[in-house]
């Protein structure tokens, strides 16, 4: 018997053939003894297996089995947070911080340049007006340097 015919017999048993193939297979089974024997063998194997799977019992207690699942579930969000922190957050934070620092430096330089040319009494020196903390900045064009003093007003 051809390999293809054997597989057709099986497909017929499993209800996976077209109407035309069904007619051909029924015809073959009527005439061919070898096909009948093979079909019978396939059929009893299928019947024996159906609904006769061994019922297994988990070899661990309910609490022990569940505790491992719960631990893993609880661990997952933390892992996500870590990967978020490590892969995305840190470089982004660094980029933002660098941007802010550059912006502040630019503002400071512009302000100092403007202030150096306009202040009549203390050229190159200015004082902030915060209530608790003050800052005095000294800038010297000649020396090319800026010094910032922080002053506690309390």
């Amino acid at each position, binding site marked *: 018997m051809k390999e293809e015919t054997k597989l057709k017999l099986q497909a017929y048993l499993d209800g996976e053939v077209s109407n035309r193939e069904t007619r051909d297979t029924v015809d073959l089974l009527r005439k061919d003894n070898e096909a009948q024997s093979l079909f019978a063998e396939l059929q009893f194997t299928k019947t024996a297996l159906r609904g006769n799977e061994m019922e297994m019992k988990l070899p661990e207690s309910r609490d022990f089995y569940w505790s491992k699942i719960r631990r893993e*579930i609880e661990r997952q969000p933390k892992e996500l947070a870590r990967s978020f922190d490590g892969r995305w957050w840190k470089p982004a934070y660094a980029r933002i911080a660098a941007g802010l620092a550059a912006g502040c430096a630019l503002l400071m330089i512009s302000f100092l340049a403007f202030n150096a040319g306009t202040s009549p009494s203390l050229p190159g020196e200015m004082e902030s007006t915060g209530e608790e903390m003050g800052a005095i900045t000294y800038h010297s064009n000649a020396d090319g340097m800026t010094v910032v003093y922080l002053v506690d007003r309390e």
Partner: protein
Amino acid sequence: MPSQQDYPTQADELLVKSAKTGDMLAFEELVARHRDKIYGRAFSMMRNEDEAIDLSQEAWVKAWQRLAQFQGDSSFATWITRITINLCLDQLRKNKRHRAESIEVLNEESGGVERQMPVVTVNPTEGLERTELRQRIDEALGKLSVEHRTVLVLHEFEDLEYKEIAKRMECSIGTVMSRLFYARRKMAALLAGYKRDELK
């Protein structure tokens, strides 16, 4: 929301609904209810106790993470079983990569020795008690190759069609048909072997 004492009497659907809102106690009840079945499916595919426990637990974790995707098109038990099967198939593929390509493996589709096996003409399972039959089927399954056993489990126990099995096993329908055919033939021979041993 039901109280904790109510969980054992709640239907799966209600427990799933509670679990979807983050109720872990409801999910624990689902695990307790289906753990044997899920472990059993993993064991039938892996034939290794430790792997079966690990994969079944992984399936539960995945189920918790994907609960929102469960729309109730099938039963919860079917859904979690499918997750388990997919995890087992992934693991079997990983294991196969480490396995040497023996003649036995190469013969999976073409039949190998099963080609020469005479047809078993007497039903070897006739007259057996159900428990005994199950025991013998399990022993015989343990003697099959991974590919043969997997296709039998998916077709006979999970009731999947050829097309669905092919998709899950990442092979052609023709391969599924061939594997199933020789798996059945080998199974018949193994079961007949037990019968012959009894008659000796």
